[in-house]
């Protein structure tokens, strides 16, 4: 998550000082991605250096408020219309764990899947309770608060959909393992000395999965 873009977007609403930016950011994202205030000040300093924000003076308590410059406004406008790119695949411990579980002998992969599914479901239950509460609050809220509730609901729903996708993927892993276990296998000596190529391109696509069927076989 780009802290820089987040702060610029908040400053597009009105000038704010550091601690105010931090609390606004957290209120709108439900504190899901907490910012420390040092991070906020460092980022503000960098934005000022790059000419995207400017200080508009101190209040009685010595807090410096910032506002967007014209270049800052252009930067925010550009951000809204640019897609978020996901050029790097973040390292996912669960995916790595399962990829290793199907290749390490003696691991009960079904058990790994079931344990994770139960844990993910518990997490989904917690998120759903939070969502229920937020929805009730949102429906009863005055107009101003309603917008912040809406932002928090959207964040929660994103987490819920991500949890659901994880459970669906785990269901898929389980079903695939069952299919793999029942798949007729070719005799290992059918094509001795040849490379593992096949005339069926689809077979090549699943070649990486064969580890589950060759458990214990010499490589």
């Amino acid at each position, binding site marked *: 998550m780009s802290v820089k873009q987040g702060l610029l977007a908040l400053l597009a609403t009105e000038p704010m000082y550091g601690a105010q930016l931090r609390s606004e950011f957290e209120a709108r994202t439900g504190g899901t991605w907490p910012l420390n205030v040092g991070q906020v000040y460092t980022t503000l300093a960098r934005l000022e250096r790059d000419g995207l924000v400017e200080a508009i003076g101190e209040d009685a308590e010595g807090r410096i408020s910032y506002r967007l410059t014209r270049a800052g406004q252009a930067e925010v406008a550009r951000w809204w219309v640019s897609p978020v790119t996901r050029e790097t695949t973040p390292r996912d411990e669960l995916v790595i764990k399962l990829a290793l579980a199907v290749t390490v002998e003696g691991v009960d992969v079904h058990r790994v899947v079931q344990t994770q599914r139960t844990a993910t*479901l518990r997490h989904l239950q917690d998120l759903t309770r939070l969502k229920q509460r937020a929805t009730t609050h949102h429906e009863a809220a005055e107009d101003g608060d309603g917008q912040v509730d809406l932002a928090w609901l959207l964040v929660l729903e994103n987490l819920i959909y991500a949890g659901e996708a994880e459970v669906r993927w785990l269901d898929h892993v389980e079903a695939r393992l069952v299919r793999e276990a029942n798949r007729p296998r070719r005799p290992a000596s059918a094509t001795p000395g040849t490379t593992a190529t096949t005339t069926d391109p689809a077979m090549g696509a699943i070649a990486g999965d064969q580890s589950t069927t060759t458990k214990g076989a010499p490589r």
Partner: protein
Amino acid sequence: MSSSDTTPRTDHEAILRLDNVTRVHGTDGTAVRALAGVSLAVRAGELVAVMGPSGSGKSTLLNLAGGLDAATSGQVLIEGQSIGTLKGDALARLRRRRVGFVFQDFNLIPSLTAVENVALPLELDGQRVSRARRRAVDALTMVGVQELADRYPDKMSGGQQQRVAIARALVGDRRLVLADEPTGALDSHTGEGVLRVLRERCDAGAAGLLVTHEARHAAWADRVVFLRDGVVVDSTGSAETAEALLEPTA
């Protein structure tokens, strides 16, 4: 694992209880075990979800819980009464008075209005029409659709029909609602509204058993029970076991 008890057996508050229930279809050579030694309790105020792949025994479990099917062994109790010993009329009466079903396709009678649909189980049970209608209006009010009382099913949206179905499931003294994929025919937003109603009715004291294949929907429950091959393999309510996943190496 032959059986998995996810709830204490000493609980008297359970509206629904399955004790070591097994259901076998067919005989000897062709016997298929649809459910094997399942124990489960649903208390007043609780919503329990059942998940599992196709053929895992979810529908069998629901049918047994509602007295639509009989266990091969073990017992099913509704409000403390074992339904295995009930026959014909007595079983039908217990179902009419104590159990409500909610199906994916709503199952409202098209020639009856909402209030008539909801009052039907009470009228079939011999209650006076005026009293049955009054209680039906109460049930419709509970699920927030009292204004639809005189409307026919074909003049209602899917979400409205399903709310009426929930009202019918919980009309009068009924406290057990058995829901089979109740959001299956609804869009995501409407489906969620129906789950909210189901959740609210359980919070108000009903007991609910919800069969679903959607994790997002199961998450509305207090507990999620997983079935595979007719066996409860896990539950989000049970204590986590910390068995070693790796077999001892030779």
